[in-house]
């Protein structure tokens, strides 16, 4: 593990890896978004009960799935940062947090918009809504803690610790609110993985949804990679490798002009 991670403690190596990975997330992400959104919004059949308004599922479910997925990945980055003292992993935590927070917010917002016609209310204190709201608070806590420190290094470490404490708490929070109150339907897709059941959704709707789930992952990962690269460059702006990248970028731009 150490031997594999060790080279990426250097910002330069991480930056180079990121540049290589970026197209593999960005291009499929963009293509799948295009396909998934058009398929889902225009060609998937309307629901027999909910009519056209169910189509918000194609945004709501991917955002909700990855809001949790990226929290876990943020905590893994935090663990790496703390155990192996790798600075770039701290920066990864901070690169992930705002993207995850936005995904959480999207899932809450689309949920409210969807709940209005279906349940007749914008907001209910239901288990899944509540735990999603708490997830948003956890993301905000990580971001607020980082900004509060003047020393970026200390802020990054503190944020990593908090992300890790939060991930231990997420299953507890999830099940506590789950037992506390429930109106939201059970999951229809992730139970394929968690309970080995077949998905309870028509295949014509399932496939565009699956496409959108991967599309969101690709796009969000690409955004995170770009954020991380910007941060790496900003922190080491006076180092030769960063200067080199920034200068060549300038030259290309001036050539184009």
């Amino acid at each position, binding site marked *: 593990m150490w031997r594999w991670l060790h080279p990426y403690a250097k910002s330069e190596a991480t930056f180079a890896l990121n540049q290589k990975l970026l197209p593999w997330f960005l291009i499929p992400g963009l293509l799948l978004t295009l396909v998934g959104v058009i398929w889902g919004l225009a060609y998937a059949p309307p629901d027999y009960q909910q009519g056209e308004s169910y189509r918000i599922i194609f945004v709501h479910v991917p955002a909700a799935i990855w809001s949790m997925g990226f929290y876990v990945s943020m905590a893994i980055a935090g663990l790496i940062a*703390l155990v192996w003292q790798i600075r770039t992993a701290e920066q990864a935590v901070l690169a992930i947090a705002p993207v995850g927070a936005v995904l959480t917010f999207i899932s809450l917002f689309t949920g409210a918009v969807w709940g209005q016609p279906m349940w007749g209310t914008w907001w209910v204190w239901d288990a899944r809504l509540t735990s999603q709201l*708490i997830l948003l*608070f*956890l993301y*905000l*806590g990580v971001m*607020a*803690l980082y900004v*509060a*420190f003047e020393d970026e290094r*200390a802020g990054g*470490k*503190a944020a990593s*610790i*908090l992300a*890790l*404490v*939060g991930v*231990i*708490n997420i299953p*507890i*929070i999830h099940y*506590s*609110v789950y037992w*506390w109150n429930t109106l939201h339907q059970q999951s229809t897709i992730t139970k394929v993985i968690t309970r080995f059941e077949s998905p309870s959704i028509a295949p014509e709707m399932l496939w565009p949804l699956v496409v959108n789930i991967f599309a969101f992952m690709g796009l969000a990962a690409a955004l995170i990679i770009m954020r991380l690269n910007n941060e790496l460059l900003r922190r080491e702006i006076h180092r030769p490798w960063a200067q080199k990248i920034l200068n060549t970028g300038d030259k290309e731009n001036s050539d184009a002009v």
Partner: protein
Amino acid sequence: MANAARIFIQIVKRDLRVASRQRSDLLNPLIFLLIVVSLFPLGVGPGPDILARIAPGVIWVSALLSAMLGLERMFRDDFRDGALEQMMLLPVSLEVSVLAKIAVHWVMTAVPILFIAPLLALLLNLPTTAWGVLWVTLLLGTPVISAAGAIGVALTVSLNKGGALLSLLLLPLLIPLLIFATAAVEAAVSGLSATGPLALMGAFLVITITLAPFAVKAGLRVSVN
């Protein structure tokens, strides 16, 4: 091992002495708790039925908020006068000192709440059948607040603007505690067995007491350079 126990006792004694000389720091959160609880009858109306209905939640939310007020002093003074750095240099692991500080914090802030809990229950017209369960939830839950709170304080102690940030970090983490505490009291009010939620609270207690000192240690290492 004997060494660790001796240092634990020494820190407990020292902190108890320091705390007993700053009585207003201890008294203020308690008065705050009383005031917040007495605001609710003024806010929602003095009807005994409504008050009995909301009593478990009000008492627990107020206890959480008042705990947020007093938490900061767990490490703040020691951080400012350098005692915290000395504690990190002790020949025993920092977790022992942290556990001692958590224990003292609990004794100084939560035990008074346990004493006035019946008064709060009386003010809010909680049925007497649920008093015992309310008391047990506070007994099991307040050490969790102290231990989880220590993590937040350790992370924010070097910042001068810790107060609001501390609540932002801690309150989301403490939501399960609130849910199960109020569930237990409500079960007792309606004559059901409260052992389920109480057992879960006991589990939280064990988990936080055993794991929190490690997180606190990591947090203090960040705050004290």
